[in-house]
């Protein structure tokens, strides 16, 4: 066995409802390496919240095994489970702080549960308040804190038990964009500096881009695609992944006849090519115009990445010169066949299920 901190093996979860059985998770197999920041993304109802809750057994799987740090969690007694749970912290969309305790009291809570002596817990809680930049709010109650501050207290609380893993269940979904960025920065710092594994549940691609190195795309209770974030971003294989990575392209309607459907290329920019004025240089050098259909620049863990869909010159020779230019400049591109929607067409000729 390699160094997997979390391993889900054939995890299935069914719920009994009035309308019969609902399969929330269907035979999920997922290995998460120590130190990973593993994103799990899907639209609401895809099963991602249920999935993360099976990791610490808040949700008992109907079938399958959950292995944490080499120990099987499924089927062990509640006392043993509670001891293991101390190594798996969790933060939530709604923060879930004790409203009747101040910030420092909340941070002491997991240590109290674990039986850490009071003075020692207190000292550590003060230390953690500094880590999350809230040392001046030690005695504020949750009702006196902003959303971002509450999540910082929750993060400090999550760190208090010296966990191996922090499960983040839509941890930034209740926050504004600016606060979201600062919370994501803090989580990344925790992942990098302390080596704590993160499992990040989200429906927002931006969270994955800013925080994760690996990602699994979940749809209808199944993982449809997984791998390095960089790779999936550049070459999404499934429609579900494309939909999540390029959400606005889904709604774009192209009026008949106005936008060219021939001679289209999808370009992928990497960290080397993303900063260069490729398109302007191409026009200047080839002396032929291009039509820009779609463009998107993104940072993946601070690395610049970009996607663009262009329409080459109608003149065949000029188009060939343009392609040659792109090859020379090291820009990955794929030709998009006529009649196909450009967002349905994966990069670099991946042939797997283009449409459903």
């Amino acid at each position: 066995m390699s160094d997997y901190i979390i391993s889900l093996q054939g995890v299935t979860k069914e719920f009994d409802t009035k309308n019969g059985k609902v399969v929330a998770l269907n035979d999920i197999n997922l290995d998460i390496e120590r130190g990973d920041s593993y994103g799990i993304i899907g639209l609401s109802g895809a099963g991602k919240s249920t999935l993360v809750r099976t990791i610490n057994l808040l949700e008992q799987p109907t079938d399958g095994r959950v292995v944490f740090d080499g120990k099987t969690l499924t089927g062990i007694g509640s006392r043993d489970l509670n001891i293991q749970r101390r190594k798996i912290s969790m933060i939530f969309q709604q923060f879930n702080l004790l409203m009747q305790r101040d910030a420092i009291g909340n941070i002491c809570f997991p240590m109290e549960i674990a039986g850490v002596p009071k003075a020692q817990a207190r000292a550590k809680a003060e230390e953690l308040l500094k880590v999350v930049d809230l040392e001046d709010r030690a005695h504020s109650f949750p009702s006196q804190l902003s959303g971002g501050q509450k999540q910082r207290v929750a993060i400090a609380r999550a760190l208090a038990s010296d966990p191996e893993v922090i499960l983040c269940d839509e941890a930034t979904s209740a926050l504004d964009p600016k606060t979201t960025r600062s919370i994501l920065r803090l989580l990344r710092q925790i992942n990098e500096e302390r080596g704590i594994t993160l499992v990040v549940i989200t429906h927002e691609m931006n969270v994955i881009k800013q925080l994760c190195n690996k990602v699994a795309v979940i749809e209808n209770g199944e993982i449809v695609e997984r791998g390095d974030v960089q790779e999936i971003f550049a070459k999404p294989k499934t429609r579900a992944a494309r939909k999540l990575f390029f959400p606005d392209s889904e709604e774009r309607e192209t009026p008949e006849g106005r936008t060219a459907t021939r001679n289209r290329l999808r370009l992928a920019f990497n960290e080397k090519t993303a900063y260069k004025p490729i398109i302007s240089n191409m026009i200047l050098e080839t002396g032929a115009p291009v039509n820009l259909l779609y463009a998107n620049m993104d940072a993946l863990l601070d690395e610049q990445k970009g996607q663009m869909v262009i329409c080459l010159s109608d003149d065949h020779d000029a188009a060939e010169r343009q392609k040659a230019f792109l090859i020379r400049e090291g820009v990955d591109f794929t030709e998009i066949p006529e009649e196909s929607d450009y967002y349905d067409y994966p990069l670099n000729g991946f042939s797997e299920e283009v449409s459903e």
Partner: protein
Amino acid sequence: MDMQTLFSLLGEETLKTLYMTFIGTLVSYLIGLPIGVSLIITSPNGIKPLGFYNKVMGFIVNVIRSVPFLILMIALMPYIRIVIGTGIGPKAITAALIVAAAPFVARLVEQSLLEVDPGVIEAAQAMGASTFQIIWKVLLLEGRPSLLNGAAVATINILGYSAMAGTVGGGGLGDVAIRYGLYRFQPAIMWITIVILVIMVQILQEVGIRIAARMDNRIN
């Protein structure tokens, strides 16, 4: 009746009422609080679902609550006489009060604890808290303001029960109101007891609200 006798009578009977109310409330909570907690944690969405216990206990609570206090008290009298030796007086009435009030308290506690955010309970579970720790550190602490408000309601209710017990020779202010006001046609005395009862209820309610608000860290 001269003023002196009247005052000493009212003073004595007020003390009896207070005795019945406070002992009754205290013991009702000793019984009703654990039952209320057990109803919460054994419910289908609770932390230790236990369907059979939950249904049976819920049924017992409902049965006792559905019998009007006056009738329950009269029905219980022979049994109370066996257990504590007498069927009249504040002691016997307090015993009846407890039987009637404990299920009421259990429901009040259940309602208060339902208000505790399930997310916070889930967070505690995720931290590896035991059932006992969740009850003690999460449910009772987070539910504290609502529990205290409930306690004021329960105390006032039990005060009302104790006054009703006057009709069967229970002693206390209710007894005074019936003996003097009704049987001896002295409406003035009846009105004095009513005023004393109203003042007691006002004080209990006010004190309950204030303590609950002071102990609540959500509003600051």
